[in-house]
Protein backbone atom coordinates (compact mmCIF):
# COMPACT_ATOMS: atom_id res chain seq x y z
CA UNK A 1 0.00 0.00 0.00
CA UNK A 2 1.23 3.43 -0.81
CA UNK A 3 0.28 6.46 1.15
CA UNK A 4 0.46 8.75 -1.87
CA UNK A 5 -3.27 9.44 -1.68
CA UNK A 6 -3.03 10.62 1.90
CA UNK A 7 -0.10 12.93 1.11
CA UNK A 8 -1.12 16.61 1.24
CA UNK A 9 -1.92 18.13 -2.16
CA UNK A 10 -2.05 21.70 -0.94
CA UNK A 11 -1.16 23.07 2.45
CA UNK A 12 -1.97 26.60 3.55
CA UNK A 13 0.26 27.55 6.44
CA UNK A 14 -0.83 30.66 8.38
CA UNK A 15 -1.96 32.24 5.14
CA UNK A 16 -3.49 35.69 4.89
CA UNK A 17 -4.74 36.93 1.56
CA UNK A 18 -6.88 39.59 -0.07
CA UNK A 19 -7.20 42.11 -2.82
CA UNK A 20 -5.16 45.30 -3.07
CA UNK A 21 -4.66 46.41 0.55
CA UNK A 22 -7.74 44.71 1.97
CA UNK A 23 -7.19 41.37 3.68
CA UNK A 24 -10.11 39.02 3.19
CA UNK A 25 -8.75 35.91 4.88
CA UNK A 26 -6.59 35.81 8.01
CA UNK A 27 -4.28 33.12 9.35
CA UNK A 28 -5.73 30.19 7.45
CA UNK A 29 -4.31 26.78 8.19
CA UNK A 30 -5.71 24.14 5.91
CA UNK A 31 -4.50 20.90 4.38
CA UNK A 32 -6.18 19.32 1.38
CA UNK A 33 -5.57 15.68 0.50
CA UNK A 34 -6.60 13.54 -2.40
CA UNK A 35 -8.84 11.61 -0.01
CA UNK A 36 -10.75 14.76 0.98
CA UNK A 37 -14.30 15.68 0.05
CA UNK A 38 -14.71 19.04 1.72
CA UNK A 39 -17.40 21.68 1.75
CA UNK A 40 -16.61 25.31 2.49
CA UNK A 41 -19.49 27.22 4.06
CA UNK A 42 -19.87 30.79 5.22
CA UNK A 43 -21.87 33.93 4.55
CA UNK A 44 -21.58 36.01 1.38
CA UNK A 45 -18.30 37.87 1.29
CA UNK A 46 -16.81 35.48 3.86
CA UNK A 47 -13.96 34.61 1.53
CA UNK A 48 -15.07 31.20 0.21
CA UNK A 49 -14.19 31.99 -3.38
CA UNK A 50 -11.00 33.62 -2.17
CA UNK A 51 -10.09 30.42 -0.34
CA UNK A 52 -10.57 28.38 -3.51
CA UNK A 53 -8.47 30.88 -5.46
CA UNK A 54 -5.72 30.46 -2.88
CA UNK A 55 -5.84 26.68 -3.14
CA UNK A 56 -5.71 26.97 -6.93
CA UNK A 57 -2.79 29.34 -6.93
CA UNK A 58 -4.81 32.03 -8.73
CA UNK A 59 -4.15 34.29 -5.80
CA UNK A 60 -0.90 34.51 -3.89
CA UNK A 61 -0.74 34.73 -0.10
CA UNK A 62 0.12 38.13 1.36
CA UNK A 63 1.52 36.39 4.41
CA UNK A 64 2.19 32.76 5.24
CA UNK A 65 2.94 30.07 2.72
CA UNK A 66 1.21 27.77 0.32
CA UNK A 67 2.83 24.45 -0.40
CA UNK A 68 1.67 22.23 -3.24
CA UNK A 69 2.66 18.77 -4.29
CA UNK A 70 5.02 19.27 -7.23
CA UNK A 71 3.07 17.31 -9.85
CA UNK A 72 -0.32 18.59 -8.69
CA UNK A 73 -2.99 19.00 -11.36
CA UNK A 74 -5.99 21.03 -10.26
CA UNK A 75 -9.21 21.84 -12.06
CA UNK A 76 -11.72 24.52 -11.29
CA UNK A 77 -15.43 24.97 -11.86
CA UNK A 78 -16.10 28.69 -11.48
CA UNK A 79 -19.12 30.37 -9.95
CA UNK A 80 -21.45 30.94 -12.92
CA UNK A 81 -21.85 34.62 -12.08
CA UNK A 82 -18.19 35.25 -12.90
CA UNK A 83 -18.41 33.97 -16.50
CA UNK A 84 -18.68 36.14 -19.62
CA UNK A 85 -21.65 34.43 -21.27
CA UNK A 86 -21.45 36.60 -24.37
CA UNK A 87 -18.06 35.22 -25.27
CA UNK A 88 -18.23 33.41 -28.61
CA UNK A 89 -17.46 29.82 -27.73
CA UNK A 90 -19.42 26.66 -28.22
CA UNK A 91 -19.69 24.05 -25.50
CA UNK A 92 -17.12 21.92 -27.32
CA UNK A 93 -14.68 24.82 -27.70
CA UNK A 94 -15.06 25.60 -24.02
CA UNK A 95 -14.59 22.04 -22.82
CA UNK A 96 -11.50 21.57 -25.00
CA UNK A 97 -9.78 24.42 -23.15
CA UNK A 98 -8.95 21.72 -20.62
CA UNK A 99 -6.43 20.39 -23.13
CA UNK A 100 -4.41 23.54 -23.59
CA UNK A 101 -0.96 22.45 -22.53
CA UNK A 102 1.66 20.66 -24.59
CA UNK A 103 0.09 20.81 -27.99
CA UNK A 104 1.04 21.76 -31.51
CA UNK A 105 -2.14 21.87 -33.57
CA UNK A 106 -4.95 24.30 -32.74
CA UNK A 107 -7.69 21.87 -33.74
CA UNK A 108 -8.61 18.89 -31.56
CA UNK A 109 -7.31 15.45 -32.44
CA UNK A 110 -9.83 12.68 -32.97
CA UNK A 111 -8.92 11.23 -29.57
CA UNK A 112 -9.45 14.60 -27.89
CA UNK A 113 -12.88 14.99 -29.43
CA UNK A 114 -13.77 11.48 -28.38
CA UNK A 115 -12.61 12.13 -24.79
CA UNK A 116 -14.53 15.41 -24.66
CA UNK A 117 -17.69 13.81 -26.02
CA UNK A 118 -17.47 10.93 -23.59
CA UNK A 119 -17.19 13.34 -20.63
CA UNK A 120 -20.11 15.36 -21.97
CA UNK A 121 -22.02 12.12 -22.38
CA UNK A 122 -21.28 11.11 -18.81
CA UNK A 123 -22.76 14.44 -17.69
CA UNK A 124 -25.75 14.08 -20.00
CA UNK A 125 -25.07 17.09 -22.22
CA UNK A 126 -23.45 15.44 -25.25
CA UNK A 127 -26.20 16.69 -27.55
CA UNK A 128 -25.39 20.29 -26.66
CA UNK A 129 -21.76 20.14 -27.80
CA UNK A 130 -22.17 22.55 -30.70
CA UNK A 131 -24.43 25.03 -28.88
CA UNK A 132 -23.26 28.45 -27.78
CA UNK A 133 -22.59 28.51 -24.03
CA UNK A 134 -25.37 31.02 -23.37
CA UNK A 135 -27.98 28.70 -24.83
CA UNK A 136 -27.70 26.31 -21.88
CA UNK A 137 -29.71 26.26 -18.68
CA UNK A 138 -27.95 27.01 -15.41
CA UNK A 139 -27.59 23.34 -14.57
CA UNK A 140 -26.23 22.57 -18.03
CA UNK A 141 -23.73 25.43 -17.82
CA UNK A 142 -22.60 24.03 -14.48
CA UNK A 143 -22.11 20.59 -16.04
CA UNK A 144 -20.24 22.05 -19.00
CA UNK A 145 -17.62 23.52 -16.67
CA UNK A 146 -17.57 20.28 -14.75
CA UNK A 147 -16.88 18.52 -18.05
CA UNK A 148 -14.02 20.92 -18.76
CA UNK A 149 -12.61 20.26 -15.31
CA UNK A 150 -12.91 16.46 -15.60
CA UNK A 151 -11.24 16.43 -19.00
CA UNK A 152 -8.13 17.65 -17.21
CA UNK A 153 -8.15 14.47 -15.13
CA UNK A 154 -7.19 16.41 -12.02
CA UNK A 155 -5.96 15.18 -8.65
CA UNK A 156 -7.93 17.95 -7.03
CA UNK A 157 -11.23 19.40 -8.20
CA UNK A 158 -12.42 22.73 -6.85
CA UNK A 159 -15.98 23.87 -7.42
CA UNK A 160 -17.44 27.25 -6.55
CA UNK A 161 -21.12 26.85 -5.69
CA UNK A 162 -21.75 23.97 -8.08
CA UNK A 163 -25.39 23.70 -7.06
CA UNK A 164 -26.50 27.31 -6.85
CA UNK A 165 -29.65 27.85 -8.85
CA UNK A 166 -30.23 24.24 -9.91
CA UNK A 167 -33.24 22.10 -9.10
CA UNK A 168 -33.34 19.35 -6.53
CA UNK A 169 -32.72 16.52 -9.00
CA UNK A 170 -29.75 18.23 -10.61
CA UNK A 171 -28.35 18.81 -7.14
CA UNK A 172 -28.66 15.13 -6.35
CA UNK A 173 -27.04 14.24 -9.66
CA UNK A 174 -24.12 16.57 -9.01
CA UNK A 175 -23.69 15.27 -5.48
CA UNK A 176 -23.69 11.66 -6.67
CA UNK A 177 -21.31 12.37 -9.49
CA UNK A 178 -18.90 14.10 -7.11
CA UNK A 179 -19.28 11.19 -4.71
CA UNK A 180 -18.30 8.79 -7.50
CA UNK A 181 -15.30 10.92 -8.46
CA UNK A 182 -14.24 10.99 -4.82
CA UNK A 183 -14.56 7.20 -4.66
CA UNK A 184 -12.34 6.99 -7.73
CA UNK A 185 -9.67 8.91 -5.84
CA UNK A 186 -10.17 12.56 -6.70
CA UNK A 187 -9.81 15.21 -4.01
CA UNK A 188 -12.78 17.57 -3.97
CA UNK A 189 -13.35 20.95 -2.37
CA UNK A 190 -16.54 22.89 -3.02
CA UNK A 191 -18.25 25.94 -1.62
CA UNK A 192 -21.94 26.04 -0.93
CA UNK A 193 -24.66 28.15 0.65
CA UNK A 194 -26.90 25.12 0.98
CA UNK A 195 -26.34 23.77 4.49
CA UNK A 196 -29.08 21.13 4.44
CA UNK A 197 -29.13 20.07 0.80
CA UNK A 198 -25.39 19.98 0.27
CA UNK A 199 -23.11 20.63 3.23
CA UNK A 200 -24.77 18.17 5.59
CA UNK A 201 -24.15 15.35 3.08
CA UNK A 202 -20.41 15.90 2.81
CA UNK A 203 -17.87 14.07 4.95
CA UNK A 204 -15.96 17.20 5.94
CA UNK A 205 -16.75 20.91 6.33
CA UNK A 206 -14.77 24.09 6.77
CA UNK A 207 -16.64 27.08 8.20
CA UNK A 208 -15.23 30.38 7.01
CA UNK A 209 -15.83 33.97 7.92
CA UNK A 210 -12.68 35.95 7.27
CA UNK A 211 -10.85 33.13 9.01
CA UNK A 212 -11.45 29.42 9.56
CA UNK A 213 -14.03 29.30 12.32
CA UNK A 214 -14.20 25.53 12.59
CA UNK A 215 -13.40 22.36 10.69
CA UNK A 216 -14.85 18.90 11.05
CA UNK A 217 -17.67 16.56 10.14
CA UNK A 218 -21.18 18.02 9.69
CA UNK A 219 -22.16 16.66 13.10
CA UNK A 220 -19.25 18.48 14.67
CA UNK A 221 -19.62 21.86 12.96
CA UNK A 222 -23.32 22.18 12.16
CA UNK A 223 -24.06 23.19 15.72
CA UNK A 224 -25.59 26.49 16.91
CA UNK A 225 -22.39 27.89 18.45
CA UNK A 226 -20.29 27.41 15.28
CA UNK A 227 -23.09 28.60 13.00
CA UNK A 228 -23.53 31.73 15.05
CA UNK A 229 -19.84 32.53 14.86
CA UNK A 230 -19.79 31.79 11.13
CA UNK A 231 -22.99 33.46 10.00
CA UNK A 232 -23.54 35.95 12.81
CA UNK A 233 -27.09 34.69 13.26
CA UNK A 234 -28.72 32.35 15.74
CA UNK A 235 -29.78 29.21 13.90
CA UNK A 236 -31.57 26.23 15.36
CA UNK A 237 -30.26 22.76 14.54
CA UNK A 238 -32.53 19.70 14.59
CA UNK A 239 -31.70 16.13 13.79
CA UNK A 240 -33.30 14.11 11.05
CA UNK A 241 -32.25 10.54 10.20
CA UNK A 242 -29.01 11.10 12.05
CA UNK A 243 -28.16 14.23 10.06
CA UNK A 244 -28.16 17.80 11.32
CA UNK A 245 -30.84 20.03 9.80
CA UNK A 246 -30.57 23.78 10.13
CA UNK A 247 -33.82 25.60 10.77
CA UNK A 248 -33.93 29.25 9.88
CA UNK A 249 -36.20 30.48 12.64
CA UNK A 250 -34.48 33.78 13.26
CA UNK A 251 -37.35 35.87 12.00
CA UNK A 252 -36.81 39.56 12.65
CA UNK A 253 -40.55 40.41 12.45
CA UNK A 254 -41.41 37.87 15.10
CA UNK A 255 -39.00 39.34 17.64
CA UNK A 256 -40.85 42.62 17.40
CA UNK A 257 -44.07 41.05 18.65
Amino acid at each position, binding site marked *: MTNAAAEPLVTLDDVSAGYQDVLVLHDVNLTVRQTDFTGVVGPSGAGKTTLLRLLLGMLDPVAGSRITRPDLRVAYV*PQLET*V*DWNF*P*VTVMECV*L*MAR*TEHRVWPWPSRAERRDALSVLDRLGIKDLAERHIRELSGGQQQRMFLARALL*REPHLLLLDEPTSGVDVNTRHDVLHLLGDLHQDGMGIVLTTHDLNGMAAHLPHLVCVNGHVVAEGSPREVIVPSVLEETFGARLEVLEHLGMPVVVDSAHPLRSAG
Partner: protein
Amino acid sequence: MDVLLEPLSFAFFQKGLLVATLSGALLGFIGVYIVLRGMSYIGHGLSHAIFGGYAAMQLFAAQLYVLGAGLWGIASAIAITAVARRSRLGADAAIGVVTTASFALGVALFSKFGSSGPAFDNALFGSILGITNTQIVWLIAVMVFAGAVVFFRYRELLFTTFDPDVARASGVHVARIEGLLMVVLSLSILVTLTVIGVTLVAAMLVIPAVVARMLTDSFGRMLAISTVVGSACGLVGMYLSYYAGVPSGTMIVLVGAAVFLVVLGITTLRRHSHRIIVDDHAPARATVKA
Protein backbone atom coordinates in the same frame (compact mmCIF):
# COMPACT_ATOMS: atom_id res chain seq x y z
CA MET B 1 -15.00 45.69 -65.46
CA ASP B 2 -12.94 48.69 -66.51
CA VAL B 3 -13.78 50.30 -63.23
CA LEU B 4 -11.89 47.51 -61.52
CA LEU B 5 -9.10 47.13 -64.05
CA GLU B 6 -8.23 50.71 -64.91
CA PRO B 7 -6.59 51.66 -61.60
CA LEU B 8 -4.59 48.44 -61.71
CA SER B 9 -2.54 49.86 -64.59
CA PHE B 10 -0.77 52.00 -62.03
CA ALA B 11 2.01 50.25 -60.15
CA PHE B 12 1.39 52.37 -57.06
CA PHE B 13 -2.26 51.29 -57.00
CA GLN B 14 -1.35 47.62 -57.36
CA LYS B 15 0.91 47.90 -54.36
CA GLY B 16 -1.65 49.93 -52.47
CA LEU B 17 -4.38 47.40 -53.17
CA LEU B 18 -2.18 44.53 -52.03
CA VAL B 19 -1.11 46.32 -48.85
CA ALA B 20 -4.63 47.50 -48.01
CA THR B 21 -6.10 44.01 -48.46
CA LEU B 22 -3.38 42.35 -46.42
CA SER B 23 -3.55 45.08 -43.76
CA GLY B 24 -7.30 44.65 -43.44
CA ALA B 25 -6.86 40.91 -43.05
CA LEU B 26 -4.13 41.27 -40.42
CA LEU B 27 -6.01 43.84 -38.35
CA GLY B 28 -9.24 41.86 -38.62
CA PHE B 29 -7.45 38.74 -37.45
CA ILE B 30 -5.71 40.28 -34.44
CA GLY B 31 -8.73 42.49 -33.73
CA VAL B 32 -10.74 39.45 -32.59
CA TYR B 33 -8.53 39.12 -29.53
CA ILE B 34 -8.49 42.86 -28.94
CA VAL B 35 -12.27 43.18 -29.07
CA LEU B 36 -12.99 40.10 -26.97
CA ARG B 37 -10.58 41.30 -24.32
CA GLY B 38 -12.21 44.70 -24.28
CA MET B 39 -8.85 46.21 -25.26
CA SER B 40 -9.93 48.41 -28.17
CA TYR B 41 -8.54 51.41 -26.36
CA ILE B 42 -5.12 49.76 -26.36
CA GLY B 43 -5.17 49.59 -30.14
CA HIS B 44 -6.12 53.23 -30.25
CA GLY B 45 -3.43 54.16 -27.77
CA LEU B 46 -0.70 52.10 -29.34
CA SER B 47 -1.22 53.48 -32.82
CA HIS B 48 -0.79 56.97 -31.45
CA ALA B 49 2.23 55.95 -29.43
CA ILE B 50 3.87 54.35 -32.43
CA PHE B 51 3.37 57.55 -34.37
CA GLY B 52 6.01 59.15 -32.13
CA GLY B 53 8.53 56.53 -33.14
CA TYR B 54 7.42 56.68 -36.75
CA ALA B 55 7.94 60.43 -36.88
CA ALA B 56 11.33 60.27 -35.26
CA MET B 57 12.54 57.55 -37.60
CA GLN B 58 11.13 59.22 -40.73
CA LEU B 59 13.14 62.31 -39.97
CA PHE B 60 16.38 60.83 -38.78
CA ALA B 61 16.77 57.35 -40.21
CA ALA B 62 14.00 56.47 -42.60
CA GLN B 63 15.63 53.18 -43.63
CA LEU B 64 15.45 51.91 -40.09
CA TYR B 65 11.89 53.06 -39.61
CA VAL B 66 10.33 49.65 -39.04
CA LEU B 67 12.97 48.70 -36.53
CA GLY B 68 12.88 51.98 -34.63
CA ALA B 69 9.15 52.48 -34.60
CA GLY B 70 8.66 48.80 -33.81
CA LEU B 71 10.87 48.98 -30.75
CA TRP B 72 9.15 52.21 -29.80
CA GLY B 73 5.75 50.58 -30.09
CA ILE B 74 6.74 47.51 -28.10
CA ALA B 75 8.30 49.76 -25.47
CA SER B 76 5.06 51.75 -25.25
CA ALA B 77 3.04 48.56 -24.97
CA ILE B 78 5.24 47.36 -22.13
CA ALA B 79 5.12 50.79 -20.48
CA ILE B 80 1.33 50.79 -20.67
CA THR B 81 1.07 47.32 -19.19
CA ALA B 82 3.55 48.18 -16.46
CA VAL B 83 1.91 51.49 -15.52
CA ALA B 84 -1.51 49.83 -15.57
CA ARG B 85 -0.37 46.96 -13.34
CA ARG B 86 1.54 49.03 -10.82
CA SER B 87 -0.72 51.98 -10.28
CA ARG B 88 -4.30 52.22 -9.23
CA LEU B 89 -5.02 54.37 -12.27
CA GLY B 90 -5.96 51.48 -14.51
CA ALA B 91 -5.03 50.84 -18.10
CA ASP B 92 -7.05 53.65 -19.68
CA ALA B 93 -5.31 56.33 -17.64
CA ALA B 94 -1.93 54.70 -18.24
CA ILE B 95 -2.59 54.79 -21.96
CA GLY B 96 -3.73 58.37 -21.76
CA VAL B 97 -0.37 59.34 -20.30
CA VAL B 98 2.01 57.14 -22.29
CA THR B 99 0.48 57.41 -25.72
CA THR B 100 -0.60 61.01 -25.93
CA ALA B 101 2.86 62.05 -24.81
CA SER B 102 4.38 59.89 -27.52
CA PHE B 103 1.94 61.22 -30.10
CA ALA B 104 2.65 64.81 -29.07
CA LEU B 105 6.35 64.16 -29.45
CA GLY B 106 5.75 62.86 -32.96
CA VAL B 107 3.73 65.93 -33.91
CA ALA B 108 6.36 68.22 -32.42
CA LEU B 109 9.14 66.50 -34.34
CA PHE B 110 7.18 66.67 -37.56
CA SER B 111 6.40 70.36 -37.16
CA LYS B 112 9.90 71.35 -36.13
CA PHE B 113 12.00 69.38 -38.59
CA GLY B 114 9.73 67.87 -41.16
CA SER B 115 7.80 69.18 -44.02
CA SER B 116 4.46 69.10 -42.31
CA GLY B 117 1.72 68.97 -44.88
CA PRO B 118 1.18 65.96 -47.13
CA ALA B 119 3.56 63.64 -45.30
CA PHE B 120 1.90 64.52 -42.03
CA ASP B 121 -1.62 64.00 -43.36
CA ASN B 122 -0.58 60.72 -44.93
CA ALA B 123 0.69 59.45 -41.62
CA LEU B 124 -2.56 60.40 -39.92
CA PHE B 125 -5.09 59.17 -42.45
CA GLY B 126 -3.20 56.70 -44.57
CA SER B 127 -1.74 56.84 -48.02
CA ILE B 128 -0.71 54.42 -50.71
CA LEU B 129 1.88 56.72 -52.17
CA GLY B 130 5.45 55.68 -51.75
CA ILE B 131 4.79 52.16 -50.54
CA THR B 132 8.12 50.38 -50.86
CA ASN B 133 8.76 46.72 -51.48
CA THR B 134 10.48 46.58 -48.12
CA GLN B 135 7.25 47.65 -46.48
CA ILE B 136 5.36 44.89 -48.26
CA VAL B 137 7.92 42.35 -47.14
CA TRP B 138 7.61 43.57 -43.55
CA LEU B 139 3.83 43.39 -43.71
CA ILE B 140 3.93 39.81 -44.97
CA ALA B 141 6.54 38.89 -42.37
CA VAL B 142 4.35 40.22 -39.56
CA MET B 143 1.34 38.37 -40.99
CA VAL B 144 3.30 35.13 -40.98
CA PHE B 145 4.43 35.82 -37.43
CA ALA B 146 0.91 36.68 -36.23
CA GLY B 147 -0.48 33.61 -37.96
CA ALA B 148 2.19 31.40 -36.40
CA VAL B 149 1.58 32.82 -32.92
CA VAL B 150 -2.15 32.21 -33.20
CA PHE B 151 -1.65 28.79 -34.75
CA PHE B 152 0.75 27.45 -32.16
CA ARG B 153 -0.78 29.26 -29.20
CA TYR B 154 -4.42 28.96 -30.23
CA ARG B 155 -5.80 27.34 -27.10
CA GLU B 156 -3.68 29.41 -24.73
CA LEU B 157 -4.85 32.62 -26.40
CA LEU B 158 -8.46 31.49 -26.37
CA PHE B 159 -8.34 30.36 -22.75
CA THR B 160 -6.62 33.51 -21.47
CA THR B 161 -9.06 35.65 -23.44
CA PHE B 162 -12.11 33.79 -22.16
CA ASP B 163 -11.09 33.29 -18.57
CA PRO B 164 -7.57 34.39 -17.55
CA ASP B 165 -7.97 33.30 -13.93
CA VAL B 166 -8.97 29.74 -14.69
CA ALA B 167 -6.37 29.62 -17.45
CA ARG B 168 -3.69 30.55 -14.98
CA ALA B 169 -4.90 27.91 -12.54
CA SER B 170 -4.78 25.38 -15.37
CA GLY B 171 -1.11 25.98 -15.91
CA VAL B 172 -1.24 28.49 -18.78
CA HIS B 173 1.45 31.16 -18.61
CA VAL B 174 -1.05 33.98 -18.89
CA ALA B 175 1.39 36.87 -18.54
CA ARG B 176 3.65 35.42 -21.21
CA ILE B 177 0.75 34.89 -23.61
CA GLU B 178 -0.52 38.41 -23.02
CA GLY B 179 2.95 39.82 -23.61
CA LEU B 180 3.17 37.91 -26.86
CA LEU B 181 -0.19 39.27 -27.95
CA MET B 182 0.96 42.82 -27.20
CA VAL B 183 4.07 42.30 -29.34
CA VAL B 184 1.97 40.97 -32.22
CA LEU B 185 -0.44 43.87 -31.83
CA SER B 186 2.35 46.47 -31.84
CA LEU B 187 3.93 44.96 -34.92
CA SER B 188 0.59 44.70 -36.71
CA ILE B 189 -0.20 48.34 -36.07
CA LEU B 190 3.27 49.32 -37.18
CA VAL B 191 3.15 47.64 -40.57
CA THR B 192 -0.38 48.78 -41.36
CA LEU B 193 0.10 52.31 -40.12
CA THR B 194 1.13 53.89 -43.40
CA VAL B 195 -1.74 52.65 -45.49
CA ILE B 196 -4.52 52.92 -42.90
CA GLY B 197 -3.24 55.90 -40.96
CA VAL B 198 -2.51 56.50 -37.29
CA THR B 199 -5.94 57.77 -36.39
CA LEU B 200 -7.83 55.02 -38.22
CA VAL B 201 -5.93 51.84 -37.40
CA ALA B 202 -7.89 51.31 -34.20
CA ALA B 203 -11.15 51.33 -36.14
CA MET B 204 -9.95 48.51 -38.38
CA LEU B 205 -8.98 46.51 -35.31
CA VAL B 206 -12.51 46.77 -34.00
CA ILE B 207 -14.97 46.83 -36.91
CA PRO B 208 -14.28 43.47 -38.62
CA ALA B 209 -14.20 41.67 -35.28
CA VAL B 210 -17.49 43.22 -34.17
CA VAL B 211 -19.09 42.34 -37.51
CA ALA B 212 -17.81 38.76 -37.22
CA ARG B 213 -19.10 38.51 -33.66
CA MET B 214 -22.59 39.42 -34.86
CA LEU B 215 -22.44 36.67 -37.47
CA THR B 216 -21.22 33.72 -35.40
CA ASP B 217 -21.11 32.26 -31.91
CA SER B 218 -18.04 30.15 -32.52
CA PHE B 219 -14.60 31.48 -31.78
CA GLY B 220 -12.88 29.69 -34.64
CA ARG B 221 -15.40 30.97 -37.17
CA MET B 222 -15.17 34.47 -35.73
CA LEU B 223 -11.42 34.52 -36.46
CA ALA B 224 -12.01 33.45 -40.05
CA ILE B 225 -14.91 35.83 -40.72
CA SER B 226 -13.15 38.79 -39.16
CA THR B 227 -10.09 38.22 -41.34
CA VAL B 228 -12.18 38.00 -44.50
CA VAL B 229 -14.25 41.08 -43.59
CA GLY B 230 -11.07 43.03 -42.84
CA SER B 231 -9.45 42.18 -46.13
CA ALA B 232 -12.66 42.90 -48.07
CA CYS B 233 -12.87 46.33 -46.46
CA GLY B 234 -9.27 46.96 -47.43
CA LEU B 235 -9.89 45.91 -51.01
CA VAL B 236 -13.15 47.76 -51.58
CA GLY B 237 -12.04 50.80 -49.61
CA MET B 238 -8.94 51.09 -51.71
CA TYR B 239 -10.91 51.24 -54.95
CA LEU B 240 -13.32 53.77 -53.51
CA SER B 241 -10.50 55.94 -52.24
CA TYR B 242 -8.97 55.89 -55.73
CA TYR B 243 -12.16 57.14 -57.35
CA ALA B 244 -13.13 59.51 -54.56
CA GLY B 245 -9.63 60.93 -54.35
CA VAL B 246 -9.50 60.75 -50.56
CA PRO B 247 -6.93 59.17 -48.22
CA SER B 248 -7.03 55.35 -48.28
CA GLY B 249 -7.60 54.91 -44.57
CA THR B 250 -10.75 57.00 -44.54
CA MET B 251 -12.47 54.95 -47.24
CA ILE B 252 -11.40 51.62 -45.75
CA VAL B 253 -12.89 52.62 -42.42
CA LEU B 254 -16.05 53.97 -44.06
CA VAL B 255 -16.56 50.69 -45.92
CA GLY B 256 -16.09 48.89 -42.62
CA ALA B 257 -18.66 51.14 -40.96
CA ALA B 258 -21.11 50.49 -43.81
CA VAL B 259 -20.63 46.72 -43.52
CA PHE B 260 -21.18 47.03 -39.78
CA LEU B 261 -24.46 48.90 -40.27
CA VAL B 262 -25.74 46.43 -42.86
CA VAL B 263 -24.89 43.40 -40.73
CA LEU B 264 -26.34 45.08 -37.66
CA GLY B 265 -29.54 45.73 -39.57
CA ILE B 266 -29.79 42.18 -40.90
CA THR B 267 -29.07 40.49 -37.58
CA THR B 268 -31.47 42.77 -35.72
CA LEU B 269 -34.21 42.06 -38.26
CA ARG B 270 -33.54 38.34 -38.12
CA ARG B 271 -33.65 38.32 -34.33
CA HIS B 272 -36.82 40.35 -34.46
CA SER B 273 -38.60 37.96 -36.78
CA HIS B 274 -37.31 35.09 -34.68
CA ARG B 275 -38.84 36.68 -31.61
CA ILE B 276 -42.20 37.02 -33.30
CA ILE B 277 -42.16 33.32 -34.12
CA VAL B 278 -41.28 32.57 -30.52
CA ASP B 279 -44.10 34.84 -29.39
CA ASP B 280 -46.53 32.70 -31.33
CA HIS B 281 -46.02 30.02 -28.73
CA ALA B 282 -46.17 32.33 -25.76
CA PRO B 283 -49.70 32.41 -24.40
CA ALA B 284 -49.04 35.57 -22.41
CA ARG B 285 -48.45 37.47 -25.64
CA ALA B 286 -51.01 35.69 -27.76
CA THR B 287 -52.71 39.00 -28.38
CA VAL B 288 -49.76 40.02 -30.54
CA LYS B 289 -50.93 37.53 -33.12
CA ALA B 290 -54.35 39.05 -33.53
